[in-house]
């Protein structure tokens, strides 16, 4: 798990001090009601570290007592007394460490749970424009990886750094108290060793980055080639691809062993430093002992101190690296959480009780927020009478889907207004606008769950009879009942449902919704025309007296509309019913005729 998370955050290791401060500030603000727990956990970590330092001194005393025993009589009672104290210290230290882990892990997990909830809620609160600048994968990685990294950082690295620092400083003090000469020797050896380690870490960074990058590359390549497997085979591209793969694999190999090797150097280097300070303590200690300056116990204590002294340094170094990643994650999480939300609309009107369904576009103009210069809809005006079926046709990029986005208030118009029954949509609460329209989109959206769950979705009071009726109207009753568990069949990636059947399922879901108006955006593009005709008949019954908007490439889908709006470059260039438009002999009739052009 840990490995996985590091991968996600490697790219962001360039980290400024200011970012770290802002991350800490934002984090403290987020945790404002429960900071106490965090600090008490850290305090426990520091206390636990103090306990580990006190130990060696006492062990030294025991060794001294034993040493006296060689020449004279051994003082067993004193040794047991000291051992008892020491055992108490050890146990107390262990309890402290345990409590620290227990408290902090619980605390940080609660925080990450809350954070994930907030992030999930946030998804539904940011305006649509946010998603045009941020990829889904990026948001998802904040919810999973970044929260985990932060949690681990707070529960492992932070107390680790605190206790290591305490241990380091404490050791230093204790060593100087015990014997300053030996202390200076150990200090010099350790500083030289640390210098070497810093050198290694500094050099290793680029290999780690290269490793993550190369792995990312090869994973991307694998994904593409596996997904395009049939094309690869039939294009006889296997050899070419294998060559390219080998090249990618080779660079993974290179970066892989280099980074592994360098991180592998750390351990022996640390051991060597530990051993050299051990030898230094022994030799210098022996010198001093022979001259009678110190006792043997001092040497024993020092051997332990030398070990305790060099380990926290590498822990601190590693801990700080981890903390940097954790705080980078914190910043990413808060960046999303603090994004501007959809405006509060509690004061706005509710939708009229019964919607008649007259829709007026009054000089609407619109451009997407990320490209304000590119006008998608310019000065669009149209009036729709209640119960009419409106078709919108035109080449790709004409702004058809944009109109739907405006009707649903996924985006707000730049100027002009859209009115339903004489009330501007902007004055109505967003949820109420959504309730007025049932909508089926170009991209079918189904989730992993049973067919029933997918159809009923968040609606209440839907009986199985209603579902069956709707499935029949959509012509997929037989398909569904033919599935192993009928309505309770779970839809997942491995269930074989054709593109057309998926579209029919989403149409069925919208039909269950019983809204006063209807929007179909290329809803039947993958459905065969006969099935479509059946649905259309049902739809027409369903939408009798309901205003409906239909967008379609296939002109047979929209021929019987009351009003066809032909759009081009953000404007309506022609309007009228099929026959009027054909007579006009303009863009529409040209488009229509092109399907009969003789090709042979």
């Amino acid at each position, binding site marked *: 798990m840990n490995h996985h998370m590091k991968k996600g955050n490697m790219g962001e290791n360039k980290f400024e001090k200011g970012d770290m401060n802002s991350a800490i500030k934002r984090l403290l603000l987020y945790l404002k009601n429960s900071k106490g727990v965090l600090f008490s956990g850290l305090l426990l970590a520091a206390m636990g570290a103090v306990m580990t330092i006190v130990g060696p001194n006492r062990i030294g005393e025991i060794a001294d007592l034993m040493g006296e025993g060689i020449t004279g009589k051994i003082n067993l009672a004193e040794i047991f007394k000291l051992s008892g104290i020491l055992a108490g210290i050890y146990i107390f230290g262990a309890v402290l460490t345990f409590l620290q*882990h227990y408290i902090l892990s619980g605390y940080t997990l609660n925080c990450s749970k809350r954070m994930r909830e907030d992030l999930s809620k946030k998804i*539904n609160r940011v305006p649509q424009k946010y998603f045009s600048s941020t990829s889904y994968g990026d948001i998802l990685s904040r919810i999973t990886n970044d929260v985990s990294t932060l949690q681990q950082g707070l529960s492992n690295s932070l107390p680790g750094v605190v206790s290591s620092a305490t241990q380091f400083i404490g050791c230093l003090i204790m060593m100087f108290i015990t014997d300053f000469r030996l202390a200076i020797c150990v200090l010099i050896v350790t500083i030289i060793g640390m210098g070497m380690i810093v050198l290694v870490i500094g050099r290793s960074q680029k290999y780690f980055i290269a490793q993550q990058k190369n792995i990312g590359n090869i994973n991307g390549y694998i994904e593409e080639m596996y997904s395009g497997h049939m094309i690869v085979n039939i294009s006889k591209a296997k050899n070419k691809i294998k060559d390219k793969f080998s090249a990618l694999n080779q660079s993974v190999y290179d970066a892989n062993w280099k980074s592994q090797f360098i991180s592998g150097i750390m351990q022996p280097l640390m051991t060597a430093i530990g051993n050299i300070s051990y030898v230094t303590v022994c030799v210098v200690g022996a010198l001093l002992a022979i001259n009678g300056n110190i006792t043997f116990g001092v040497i024993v204590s020092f051997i332990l101190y030398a070990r305790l002294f060099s380990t926290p340094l590498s822990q601190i170094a590693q801990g700080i690296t981890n903390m940097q990643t954790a705080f980078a994650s914190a910043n990413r999480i808060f960046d999303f959480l603090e994004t501007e939300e959809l405006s509060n609309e509690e004061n706005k009107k509710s939708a009229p009780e019964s919607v008649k369904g007259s829709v007026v576009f009054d000089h609407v103009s619109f451009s997407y927020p990320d490209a304000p210069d590119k006008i998608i809809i310019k000065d669009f005006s149209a009036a729709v009478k209640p119960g009419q079926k409106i078709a919108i046709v035109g080449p790709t990029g004409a702004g058809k889907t944009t109109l739907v986005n405006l009707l649903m208030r996924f985006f707000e118009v730049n100027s002009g207004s859209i009115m339903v029954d004489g009330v501007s949509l902007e004055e109505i609460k967003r949820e109420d606008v959504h309730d007025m329209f049932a909508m089926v989109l170009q991209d079918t959206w189904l989730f992993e769950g049973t067919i029933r769950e997918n159809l009923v979705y968040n609606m209440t009071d839907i009986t199985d009879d209603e579902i069956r009726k709707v499935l029949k109207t959509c012509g997929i009753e037989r398909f569904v009942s033919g599935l192993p568990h009928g309505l309770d069949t779970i839809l997942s990636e491995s269930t074989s449902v054709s593109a057309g059947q998926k579209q029919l399922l989403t149409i069925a879901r919208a039909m269950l919704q019983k809204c006063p108006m209807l929007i179909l955006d290329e809803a039947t593009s993958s459905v065969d025309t006969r099935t479509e005709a059946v649905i259309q008949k049902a739809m027409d019954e369903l939408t009798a007296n309901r205003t409906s908007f239909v967008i379609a490439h296939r002109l047979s889908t929209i021929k019987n509309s009351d009003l066809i709006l032909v759009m081009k470059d953000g404007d309506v260039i022609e309007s009228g019913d099929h026959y009027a438009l054909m007579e006009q002999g303009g863009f529409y009739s040209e488009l229509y005729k092109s399907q009969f052009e003789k090709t042979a």
Partner: protein
Amino acid sequence: MFKLLKEMKKREAIMSVICALLVLVQIYFELALPDYMRTLTELIKSAENSMNEVWVIGFKMIGCTLASAATSIACGYLAARVGAGFSYSVREKLFGHVLSLGQNEMSSLSVPSLINRTTNDITQIQMLVAMGLQIAVKSPIMAIWAILKILGKSWELSLLTAAFVVFICGSIVAIMFTVLPRFKRVQKLMDTLNRTARENLTGINVVHAFNAEEYQNKKFFGINKNLWKTQLFNQRMFSFFQPVMILGMNGLSLGIYCLGSVLLSQISAEDFSSKLSLFSDITVFTTYAMYVVMSFMMMVMIFMMFPQAQVSAGRINEVLKQKSSVVEGTVNEGKELGVVEFKNVSFAYPDSNENQLRDINFRVERGETIAFIGATGSGKTTLINLVARFFDATEGEVLVDGVNVKDYTFDALYDKLGYVSQKAIIFSGSVRENIAFGEASDEIRDDDIDLAIKLAQADEFVGKMSNGIDSHIAQSGKNLSGGQKQRLSIARALARNPEILIFDDSFSALDYRTDAALRAGLEKNLSGVTKLIVAQRIGTIRHANKIVVLDDGKIAGIGTHDELMKTCGVYREIATSQLTEEELR
């Protein structure tokens, strides 16, 4: 796991042997240190003031330390190369094998799972190999060596050490056993969490349209709570880990001192020399005892890691074991040119007993266009998949140029075919790389590419791109519209100059005008090429030489548009659902 180890190359195998030998050397030096320390201790304690000896031994110790560090770095180097090299070979082998699988195996193993196996699972194994190589060799030898060193010294102290080893390793095993299965669960829950959030994101418009924000939140919260509960349990169990370890190690050295003093007190006061040797034994004992405990801890860790890597190895072997159900034949040449024929073909997907296609018969000659039309799920895609051998017919024969497709070598068959999938597949890279993808019977030259682009009606937008055919295309063609992607994938099939072209509903994202222009171009320039077209629009296929109407896996009618209008009810229904009687004439 061991099966997979066979994939290791000779060079890596030799390296691992050297590495193992180096580990021995390293242990020798590392364990020599406490011996010197024992001598040092005795020197310091004994009355003889021989500073020279202290110096000599000090230098020897530093020498050993450096030698041990150097060998261990060398080991690390070899282990890193072996681990990386091993994963290189396995990845290479696995990738090549997946490419050779048939469509059937691809869908039963599923693409996401295969991707995971080629990436994560291999990383898992690599970690075990790189770590295991050092630790698996080092820790048992270290343990045995250290035990040998202290074995003769004092059975009381040895017993104490053994007791602590059992205690510490026992706690590790207990903790890991409770936690490991839950780790897997956390992984799964994390996947579910990810999926749920992804659902919400990809369907954000639908979520808003249905005012289903609460519904989605509730769903997410439920999974999140489960995840939290499992993680909480794990982390709390792990809270025991560190304190138990430290307490165990400290307790052991304390115990050795206590027990040691008791032993010391039992020796009579006059026996000075045996007292001294016992004393130095005790100090050395603490050090070696630590080695023993640490070695055992490492061994336990490896044992714990092993099952996880074992799972990964199993997943990889499962793929490697999988043989393609589509077997290559030996024929290189066809008997005819540009002919496709189905003789009494039936087909059922391997995991279902219901026939998807029943008794299909037709023949299409060189240069002709044959179209397939029918309701959603009637078997159109399945039918043309049989020509490309994505699947093999269950009964009957599919013939290309008079030879059963099963008898051709893959290269010979694929040289004849150009195939455009239903959903356009686009790779990241340049326009050129996408079109001149793979190999054809002749080399794909620039003028082939240009012509293909023109015929696919793609010159209009490719020309507008900043670098023409060398312009960059993002992963899965994210910087292209649906219609543009479809046109590029058509161009890819055309550039190979095939005898037979297969279009699986490949015109659906094109507007009528582009569709018509494209077909006109094909007709004019590729008159010698046989075309198999699946389509929904009558307009797309009405001029085909033959139209096959499929209904529920069976042929409901074959003929030209005019013939079918008269004879085939299903066709007439499809046609009139799109065009009026008048337009159809």
